[in-house]
């Protein structure tokens, strides 16, 4: 819908609904003003007439009387009007201004009277303040004064920081260093910028702080010596420094703006008014925005008793305390300002959820306020409906249906708006928000108020709407905004939807309205609401007093949010109760909802395999179109309203047993059971899916690989079939025999963790200890083989936080640690086997050669050789004897068995076509070689064979050596003697030849 009948102009709304009272002329002000009759008086020295003496409330007329209850010579009197922004301070100030002015106007020329000077909230420039103050007196010109908004920010910054520095002495070097640091200057610049920007916007509250005291304290941690330079004052060094900085900055602003001395101005006003037999009533609408004068104003009116002002100062709640405290700290005597303050008039009060404007607590005042404005606006317009009302509906019908003058709202609508007013998620019920940000906006929007109001969630929060979230008829919104509860239905005058062109029967079902409490003693339902009741069943008396909302209120409050969320109107933020309810239901039906042991598994050997995020608690996530950080059971709006509200009940009445809830027909336990089963099943499935995504391998595959690993290393063979995998293994048969090979797998640790690996397999494939889910196992391994699975396990990466595995809960370790981290590292076995697959052939050949050699060598051996004869051989060869004596008593049975095993092992080695088969075959070889009892016979046989071989070798060597021994005389000396003789002979022959 884009249009609906309007009998007002948009221009008129703007005219009447102004932010500040002063922006309206007196006529408009009078039309819309609603008397402010609930003003709380605090720090009272003036009032003794009350509209509510218990609460010390006065009305605006009493305030007026008090303000003008002063004589010409009375010293200054201060009235503070304190309240949240928009709570009516301007309205009250304006009303007082008009009333005081009226009183002055009727007074005779020389008759004593009070005369108001109103400084509205939007007047913030010091020059404007002075001009406003001096409007009625002569001799004050402020032509040279400058406006802050006109000055360049850099100039303001330089002047300000320069003046701040000059507040200190040149010898205070650390202070000067700090004040000239980039950090300090940046901060001041930032705050100045914000201040100047806000200065021009009357909606923004402004306080001039070059740096806040808390910020200063933090900054000074980096300049630890600065504080030493400001010790010895009455106040602490940080506070002293803060004040000096602020004084410097304020001085700088005064100099820059050339504003003059406000105290002098005030003294002149005092004198001028006295001269006219008038007493000035200075009304400062908002001192918070009073820039550089706030401090001086307070100082003037509290210090100087020579002036004769009645002063009404509006201050926003927070800054009020600061101003007064600051002033008190300035003065030698704290009494001075207290003496001057005649009363503090509060317009708001703090509530648990935020704040509330007091006068709006007057019965139906928000209706009257709206009606006043609507009447004024409609009177300003031509009064015709455009587009026209639907046929058959007259303006009188409209007034009947909506309430006189309230169209397009009704009382229900306005009350809902008022009760839900908030700012930044905190309750803030002020007329300004009520009128400006809701009423005016709704009137000006082309869409009907019930449509547009739904879009004002930021201002209104979630409207209480107990209509069943399953009710999706077009009149749901109209019912929600204009309707009211009647029995178990929500109804509305059918004229209202008709005016907006919406078909409606004027009623809708509601949810859980009137939910009752439970007796904590007998757990029976208590039909009375509130705190005070007595259990009709057991006589238990509720003694609960003022401890926040009752459980029923809490339930209805959260349920409202839940329903809005379910309708898609809002996020569901207060989820702790429904989550707690969800936890209860799930834990009621499932002992271990986070367990990843197959639900059908009843094996006592199954491992503890659990996603332990947050302990035993099942994490529950409420879906607000966001993704949970980790896997959780998700509550989404598409879950039935009944289940969701039942979960909420169980979360709110968490001390009442689930059985009692059911017995009292408060919950549908069967449906909750279905939900819990399905949620846990989905949760587990999701976890398993995420685990598989993370590791790229499923829990089932990990379990299968674990069992296969055990099969191979315990001698159960290398078959990768359901039959072989389901076969139980004897973990004591896992023995470490691979030390002499290149295989690096840690078999000792595998044995240590064997029960855990078996437990993993049981958890995933066993139905009972001795019963395997054969079909499932067959299905899982259908597309797998040992090598592909090994490659998958070997490639595992990723982390899955919270998943634990252990033989028992107390022994549980992180699944990451089980899979690939230090503690167990299943992946390492896969990698070791893969790596060994590249090199095992060498070990295979060596082992085969060794065992085959032995096998061939011991053929026919009966273990009863007479070794004595062989001992004779040792006396002829270079070898120690005696070896055979150790083996002379070999049992024939042992020898025969060992030879048989040897034969089998050799055959298995010969048949080994894969690393798995070799590891399996080598295990048998290893047992023969290294493990009792086989190794003793094996060693004996091996040693006999080896020794015989070596003895024969030694004999051969000996024979060779002896055969090589021949008579070969050494004739070296003979040869050399003959050589000498030959040489001499030749010499003699030469001589003979020479002689011849």
């Amino acid at each position, binding site marked *: 819908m884009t249009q609906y009948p309007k009998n007002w102009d948009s221009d008129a709304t703007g005219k009447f609904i102004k932010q500040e009272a002063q922006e309206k002329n007196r006529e408009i002000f009078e039309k819309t003003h609603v008397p402010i009759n609930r003003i709380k008086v605090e720090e009272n020295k003036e009032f003794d007439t009350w509209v509510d003496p218990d609460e010390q409330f006065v009305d605006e007329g009493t305030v007026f009387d008090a303000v003008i209850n002063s004589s010409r010579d009375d010293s200054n009197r201060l009235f503070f009007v304190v309240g949240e922004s928009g709570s009516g301070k301007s309205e009250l100030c304006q009303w007082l201004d008009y009333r005081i002015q009226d009183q002055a106007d009727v007074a005779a020329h020389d008759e004593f009277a009070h005369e108001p000077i109103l400084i509205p909230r939007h007047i913030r420039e010091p020059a404007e303040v002075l001009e406003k103050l001096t409007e009625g007196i002569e001799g004050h010109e402020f032509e040279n004064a400058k406006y802050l908004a006109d000055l360049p920010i850099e100039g303001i910054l330089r002047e300000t920081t320069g003046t701040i520095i000059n507040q200190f002495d040149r010898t205070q070097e650390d202070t000067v260093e700090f004040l000239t640091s980039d950090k300090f200057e940046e901060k001041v610049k930032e705050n100045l910028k914000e201040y100047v920007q806000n200065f021009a916007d009357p909606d923004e509250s402004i306080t001039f702080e070059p740096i806040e005291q808390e910020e200063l304290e933090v900054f000074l941690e980096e300049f630890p010596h600065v504080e030493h330079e400001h010790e010895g004052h009455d106040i602490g060094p940080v506070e002293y420094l803060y004040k000096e900085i602020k004084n410097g900055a304020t001085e700088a602003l005064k100099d820059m703006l050339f504003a003059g001395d406000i105290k002098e101005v005030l003294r002149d006003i005092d004198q001028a008014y006295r001269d006219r037999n008038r007493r000035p009533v200075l009304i400062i609408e908002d001192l918070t925005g009073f820039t550089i004068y706030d401090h001086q104003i307070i100082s003037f009116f509290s210090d100087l008793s020579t002036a004769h002002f009645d002063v009404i100062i509006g201050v926003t709640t927070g800054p009020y305390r600061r101003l007064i405290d600051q002033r008190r700290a300035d003065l030698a005597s704290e009494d001075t300002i207290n003496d001057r303050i005649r009363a503090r008039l509060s317009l708001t009060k703090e509530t648990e959820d935020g704040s509330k404007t007091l006068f709006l607590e007057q019965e139906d005042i928000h209706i009257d306020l709206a009606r006043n404005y609507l009447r004024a606006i409609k009177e300003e317009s031509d009064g015709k409906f455009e587009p026209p009302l639907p046929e058959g509906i007259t303006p009188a019908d409209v007034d009947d249906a909506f309430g006189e003058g309230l169209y397009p709202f009704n009382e229900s609508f306005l009350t809902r708006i008022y009760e839900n007013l908030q700012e930044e998620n905190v309750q803030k019920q002020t007329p300004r928000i009520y009128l400006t940000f809701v009423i005016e906006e709704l009137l000006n929007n082309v869409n009907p108020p019930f449509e547009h109001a739904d879009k004002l969630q930021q201002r209104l929060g979630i409207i209480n709407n107990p209509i069943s979230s399953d009710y999706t008829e077009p009149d749901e919104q109209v019912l929600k905004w204009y309707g009211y509860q009647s029995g178990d239905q929500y109804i509305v005058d059918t004229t209202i939807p008709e005016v907006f062109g919406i078909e409606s029967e004027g009623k809708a079902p509601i949810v859980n309205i009137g939910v009752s409490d439970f007796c904590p003693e007998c757990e029976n339902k208590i039909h009375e609401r509130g705190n005070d009741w007595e259990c009709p069943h057991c006589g238990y008396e509720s003694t609960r007093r003022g401890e926040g909302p009752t459980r029923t209120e809490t339930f209805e409050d959260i349920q409202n949010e839940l329903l809005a969320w379910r309708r898609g109107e809002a996020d569901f933020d207060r989820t702790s109760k429904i989550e707690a309810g969800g936890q209860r239901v799930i834990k009621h039906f499932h002992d271990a909802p986070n367990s990843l042991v197959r639900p059908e598994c009843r094996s006592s050997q199954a491992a503890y395999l659990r996603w332990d995020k947050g302990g035993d608690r099942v994490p529950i996530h409420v879906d607000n179109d966001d993704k949970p950080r980790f896997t959780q059971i998700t509550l989404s709006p598409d879950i039935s309203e009944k289940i969701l509200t039942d979960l909420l009940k169980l979360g709110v009445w968490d001390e009442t047993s689930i059985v009692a809830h059911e017995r009292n027909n408060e919950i549908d336990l069967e449906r909750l059971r279905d939900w819990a089963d399905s949620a846990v099943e989905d949760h587990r499935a999701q976890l398993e899916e995420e685990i598989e995504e993370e590791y790229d391998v499923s829990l089932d595959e990990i379990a299968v690989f674990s069992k296969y690993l055990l099969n191979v290393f315990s001698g159960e063979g290398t078959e990768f079939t359901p039959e072989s995998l389901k076969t139980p293994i004897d973990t004591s048969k896992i023995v470490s025999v691979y030390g002499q090979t290149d295989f690096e797998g840690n078999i000792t640790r595998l044995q240590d963790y064997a029960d855990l690996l078996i437990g993993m397999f049981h958890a995933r494939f066993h139905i009972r200890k001795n019963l395997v889910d054969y079909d499932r196992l067959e299905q899982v391994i259908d597309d797998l083989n040992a090598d592909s699975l090994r490659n998958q396990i070997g490639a595992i990466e990723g982390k899955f936080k919270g998943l634990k595995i252990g033989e028992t809960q107390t022994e549980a370790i992180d699944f990451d640690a089980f899979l690939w981290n230090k503690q167990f590292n299943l992946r390492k076995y896969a990698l070791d086997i893969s790596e060994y697959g590249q090199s095992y052939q060498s070990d295979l050949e060596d082992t085969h050669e060794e065992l085959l050699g032995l096998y061939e060598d011991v053929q026919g051996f009966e273990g009863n050789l007479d070794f004595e004869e062989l001992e004779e051989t040792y006396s002829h060869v270079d070898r120690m004897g005696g070896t055979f004596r150790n083996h002379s008593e070999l049992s024939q049975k042992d020898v025969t068995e060992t030879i048989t095993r040897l034969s089998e092992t050799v055959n298995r080695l010969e048949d080994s076509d894969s690393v798995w088969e070799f590891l399996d075959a080598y295990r048998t070889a290893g047992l023969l070689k290294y493990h009792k009892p086989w190794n003793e016979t094996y060693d004996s046989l091996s040693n006999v064979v080896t020794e015989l071989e070596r003895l024969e070798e030694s*004999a051969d060597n*000996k024979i060779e050596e002896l055969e090589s021994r021949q008579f070969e005389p050494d004739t070296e000396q003979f040869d050399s003697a003959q050589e000498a003789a030959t040489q001499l002979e030749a010499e003699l022959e030469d001589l003979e030849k020479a002689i011849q």
Partner: protein
Amino acid sequence: MSEANPITERVERIQTKTDRIQKLQDEVKKIAQKQKTADQKNREFEDVRDNIRKVQEQYERLMEWSEYGERMDISMPEPEINALIDNLATDLRSFTSKSFEDFDDDSEVRTLTTTFEDHRTSLSSRTDTVREAVQNTVEDEVDSVERTQTLLQVPDIGDDDAETTCDNYWYHLRQLQRGNLGNTSPKKWEKFNAEYEGLAISLNAYDLSEKSETLIWDLLNDDETVHLSDLDGETLSDLKTFEEFSDIIELRFSTQS
């Protein structure tokens, strides 16, 4: 199991091999004994070799002195020397014609050692004879050279070359005199001897009488004694005329006549 029985077979093999070892060990013992004998014999040949080398050295020394003798025209006992050498050559031939096995044992070798020792002794004796003859001649030559060297000290007699010739010749003669054959050789001796013999030294430059000249030569000869009675007045006047002689000729009283 009637199939092969590797262990039994191996044990049998080992036993067979053990028997073989025992046999071989007996043989080796015998070889060792033979070896021992041969080693002893062989070791004895070391002395044979040493003695042959000494004979060779002695023979070479004899030949060298003999060569000096020949060049100095000294008469040599050649028949004796030749007989020695013939005997030596015969024994050498006898030895070199035999094999190691031709010697039965070490005592046989020791006989051979003695044979060559005898040869060396004979050669040595003959060498001494020749050496002494040569060294006698050398001694005369040394006297001659030394006289010449004295004369050469007289101014205007001889020259530097003559002095060098005398020095060289004298050096080699002295080596022979001391038996230092390593620092000279027959060829060198012959060369320096020829140079020395070629020197023409006269006293003509002093215009002396023949008597005076003879007297001076006699004075230069250490073996010659000149008595005052041998000097006549003319000779004395001659000698006194010349300052060089008058200052170096010294008169000495002798009680022997």
